[in-house]
Every structure is written in C-alpha cells, then in structure tokens.
C-alpha cells in the first residue's frame, strides 16, 4: 500500500537535511511502528507523508497504491485515503467541531465522486464513533480542539480518523500527553480500525503504546534513516537498552 523509496527531505527554510534515505514498505493489513530518539526525523517523516510544505523532498519517492503521492496536495492525499493523527492537534477558534467534521467528510466524498452525507446519516456516524471514544456532545459543540485537554485532543484525532475511514493511518506520537486511561481509550479506538484493507504507521518514542497497539513490524529510525527492523520484541529491547546502540550505528 505504502512504498517509501530512498526518501530524502530537508527543511525548506534553512535546507537542513532531516531524512537521508528512508526505505519502508507497508502492506495492507499491517501495523508498523517507527521508533527512534528525539531528532531522528520521526515527525518529519509524518509531515512529509501528509504533504506539509515546510519540508522539501530532494530525492526518492513515495507511492501510495502505486501512485506518486508527492505530486498530490495535502487534501488530495487525504481524499485518497491518507490520514495523519497529529502529535499536537491544532486549535482552531471559530470553527465548530461538528461543522469541521461535516466539511471534511463531505470534501473527501466530493473529491472521490461520492454523494454528500445527509444530516441524519452524518449525525448517526458521529454519535456512534464519539460514543466509542468517550467524546461528549459538549466537546463536539466547542470550536475545534479549543480548550480541549491533551487527552481530549488525541481522542478527537482518533474520532476524525474513525469518521474519515482512511486506508493509511499515520499516528505521530499519539501517546504523548496521555494518562493510562486515555491511552487505553485511544488505543482501543485505533485497534477497532485495524483491518485487512487498512495499513497503519505508528510513530512513537516509547514502547508503552505498543503494548496496546501491537505492531507487526518495528523499525528504528535514527538520523534520518531506518537502521534496524524487527518484530515487536525489538520495541521491548529498545525499552530496556535505549537507543544508544542505534544512534552510534547510524553515525
């Protein structure tokens, strides 16, 4: 589903190179975890996949279902089925959460040539997904992410993911800022979305998220490259020994 080949990317403003040849293939139905120390390029990878123009791809390619994703705008990527759960979901005062959800869902449907959702159908979907994630109607009435706690923001991200039904989910440090209970709710929400037609890339600094969202493959990203790939036991090993070995290996 997702093929990343020799991806090099830098910060557009100061040309600092962050990704230095990432290779990664994720098949439908798989969950891949990407772990790595601070500054290894984890978040950059997620932003480059989503199409943030603060970054410039200098080499390599990203194929999504065989299509060159780097030629697509962020909204085209989303409509094609790519979803990034942000590490720091953005607060947007003045945009009501419900209105935002409806606009996003219908924009994607429109781009795919599907009919717009009726209001009752939309409401039913939102209520159902919100119920699973313990997102209250009160939260949905507020402006998007405004005044939400850290945990509420992450739950709202997963709510969006559930409603938009992407085929490729990239979760950028979804566990940061979550307490144990919130971590469980968020993980349950993510696990519910696992399926044979959907791929996930879970980016995390700590192993604990992977106790809840058990990955098929674990990669270690260091200094802009994947330096080690293994199964879920690799995450446990990292938790015990730290990243020191891999930081040196990449150097």
């Amino acid at each position, binding site marked *: 589903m997702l093929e990343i080949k020799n991806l090099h990317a830098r910060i557009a403003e100061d040309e600092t190179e962050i990704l230095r040849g990432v290779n990664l293939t994720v098949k439908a139905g798989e969950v891949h975890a990407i772990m790595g120390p601070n500054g290894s390029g984890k978040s950059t990878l997620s932003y480059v996949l989503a199409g943030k123009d603060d970054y410039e791809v200098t080499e390599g390619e990203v194929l999504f279902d065989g299509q060159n994703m780097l030629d697509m705008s962020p*909204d085209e990527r989303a409509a094609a089925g790519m979803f990034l759960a942000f590490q720091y979901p953005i607060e*947007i005062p003045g*945009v009501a959460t419900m209105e935002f959800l409806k*606009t996003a*869902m219908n*924009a*994607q449907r429109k781009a795919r040539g599907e009919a717009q959702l009726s209001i009752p159908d939309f409401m039913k979907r939102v209520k159902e997904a919100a119920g699973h994630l313990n997102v209250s109607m009160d939260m949905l009435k507020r402006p998007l992410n405004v005044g939400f706690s850290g945990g509420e923001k992450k739950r709202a991200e997963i709510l969006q993911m559930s409603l938009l039904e992407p085929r490729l989910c990239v979760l950028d440090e979804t566990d940061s800022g979550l307490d144990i209970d919130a971590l469980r709710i968020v993980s349950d929400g993510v696990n519910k979305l696992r399926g044979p037609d959907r791929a996930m890339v879970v980016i995390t600094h700590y192993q604990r998220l992977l106790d809840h969202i058990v990955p098929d493959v674990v990669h270690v990203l260091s200094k802009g490259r994947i330096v080690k790939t293994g199964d879920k036991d690799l995450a446990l090993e990292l938790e015990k020994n730290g990243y020191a070995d891999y930081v040196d290996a990449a150097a």
Partner: protein
Amino acid sequence: MNASVPIKHTQAESDLIDRFEAAKGALSGSVAVTALREAAVSQIRDKGLPHRRVEEYKYTDLRAFMKSAAPLAAAADESAVKAILGGQDAFGELERYRIVVANGAFLPGLSDLEALAGEGVSVTSLTDELAGEHGAQLLASPKSAANDGVLALNTAFVQGGVVVKVKEGAEISRPVELVHVAASAGGQISRSRISVAKGAKLRLLETFAGETGNGEINIVFDYDVADTASLVATRLIVGQSDAARLFTSIATIGAQAEFKSLGFIAGPRFIRNQQFINFAGENSNAGIYGVTMARDEDLADQTLIVDHAVPHCNSREFFKTVLDGRAKGVYQGRINVAQHAQKTDGEMMTQALLLSEDAEMANKPELEIFADDVICAHGATSGQIDEDLLFYLRARGIPEDEARTLLVLAFLAEAIEEYGEDDVTEGLEARVRDWLAGH
C-alpha cells in the same frame, strides 16, 4: 491672530459650495436650521474637506479621494424604489418591519407605518421636523464630534430622513429595517433620529441599496437610548460602489440602558463608518462591534469614540478586519474616561487578517483615562492566515480555497458570535462567502 489664509479649493470643494448655493432654497429648515447649514458650509469653505493633516482623518483623506461632488439626488420615483427593494434581500426571510428613506428623504408610502404604530413606534419625516420649532435640536452634535468634517457635510446638505420614536415600555416584536435606497444618481444625504423611551426595546437594521453614480452617501444616525431602554443596531453595507460612503452614528445612552451595534462592511471603494458613543447615565452597557472586508484599492475606516462621562458603565469594542489586494483598513478607537467616571470597565480589541502582501492596516486604539479606579484594556493585532491551521484543514481533505474561506469565516465569527443576535446575523456567513468569491 486668526486671520486665516483662504485655502485653495479642490474641485470637489468648489462643487460642494456651488451645490449649496443651488440647493439651499430647496433644503428645508427653520431659521435656526438654516443658520446651522450656513455654518457647516462655511466650515467646508474655510477648512476644506477633512484630509490627512486632520488627526482624525490621518489615514482617510477624503479631500484627496473626492475628485468632484455630484449634485444632490432629486426626489425618488416610488416605482423605481419598489423595484430596487424587490431585488434586495439583505436579511433574507427574517420577519421585520420596514421604513424606507429614498434619495435622502422619507418615503412613507413604502413604510410599514400602521403596523409600527400598533407596536408603539411613531415615524415622522425629518424634513418636516427640521422646519418646526425644535428643528435645530435634531442637528445637534456631541462634544466629541465637534468640527467633524463629515458631520458638517451632512448638516449642510441633509435632505431628510426619519424621526423614529419608540414609546415607553414598548418591546417591538420584530426588528425594524431602516432601508436607504438610492433610486437615482447623485448625493444622498440623510439623518435619522431614533429615540427609544424608558424601558422600551428596539432592534434596528440599517441597510443600503441602489447605485449613486459619483454621488456620495452621507448618513447620520442619532440614537437616543433612554434610561432602562435597549437598542441594538445592525448596519450592513455590502456591495461595490465608487463614490464615498460616509456614515456617522451618535449615541446617547441613559442609565441602566443597553446599546449594541454591529457595523458590517464589505465592498465599497471608500468608506468611513464613525461612531460617537456617549454614556449619559450610570450602570449602562455598550457593545460596539465591527466586521470589515476590503480588497483591491479599497479603503475602509471604522472610527469610534466612546465617552465614559459617568461612573459604573461598561463598554466592549471588538473589531475584525480582513484585507486583500492593496486595500487599506483603518481602525481608530478611543475610550475616554472622565475624572469622576469611576468603576468604568472598557475593553477594546481590534484584529486584522491580511490576505495579501500589499494590504495595509492602521490600528489605532487609544485610552484616555482621568479616573483612578477603572478597568480598561486595549489590544491590536495584524496577521496573516496561519499556515499550520491551513495545513491541518487540508490534511483532513478540505481543499485550499475552502480551507482559507473557513479560516476567514472563523476569524470574523468571533466578533459576530460575541455580538449575538443570531437570527439577524445568521445570513452574514453567506455575505462573507460572497465577498471572498469576489462579489
């Protein structure tokens, strides 16, 4: 040492002086009113139109903008007015009463006078009132507006308008739309007095329709809000126009009274919307809101002076401006707090969103405080669309244009939502979208 050197008149100033000579026989008024008109023309003759060396007009140089002055519009043809009214739907389906001022004069035939009378609202013609014994009182200006050039232009040429009186305790069930129609080209100069008596409540809508060619529009709204009364005035100025649009509000607010206004502006080439708000009684609240959109070479100016002359009053001023192209936005807001006006609470905020590199915003919030036990704050910001917000929306599949529109709407919505009056403001989102789409 006041031997002033006569100024060299611009074409527009000469036109205005000629216009007065030509029209003065037809302009109504008692002897006292005529004297006020003469004095106002003298001010134009001696000082000219307001220009950038006059502090209040530093950013809004009317003298430089006005290349000429058209004659005053002739009396409106009622069928033409009807046709224009049929084509305007400023507030859509909202149930409301209507009062029509066309080409500067009251048009009783198209106004809902009977229904208004039934609710305790009387409407008379300003033209008639100016000829009466108390006519001159209807042209009085507050201290804070003394020598204002736009007001002087209005006083000199005011053709008519309405005097609306809401009787004591009357709560008008529907909003009242005071619609100003330009049925033909030419200057359209009117003034209306809106008096809301003790305990009465009125929601006013102020709208404008029709084309004036190169004629300016100059309208004064003079609100008198009595003790325990409430007035909410929503002004909607939308659509493109080439000649100057000059609006002045004067509000006198009694004790325990409420006054709220929204000035919504989208499209004119050159507009000044100025307000002089005066607290005359204690324990009253005023909320002054502004939403302005300008593009191309447009200039849009929202200016206000809030005079806290008495203690224990609250005022909130919240203005939002969106600028594109080479447009220039102006916000000048001053809160004056008199020495004995203790426990005043004033909070003023002006925020601008610049959609282009060449747009320009002049934000000038001012506080002038002589009392020592007050809470007053002011703030001003200018910024561009936040790229992170834009990316977040696009990452959810919302195309760039729609995402930008959402963010502009969100920016403006903060002021509109705080203003409230949901039934009146619900159609404004469509107006913003129209403007963003270039209409």
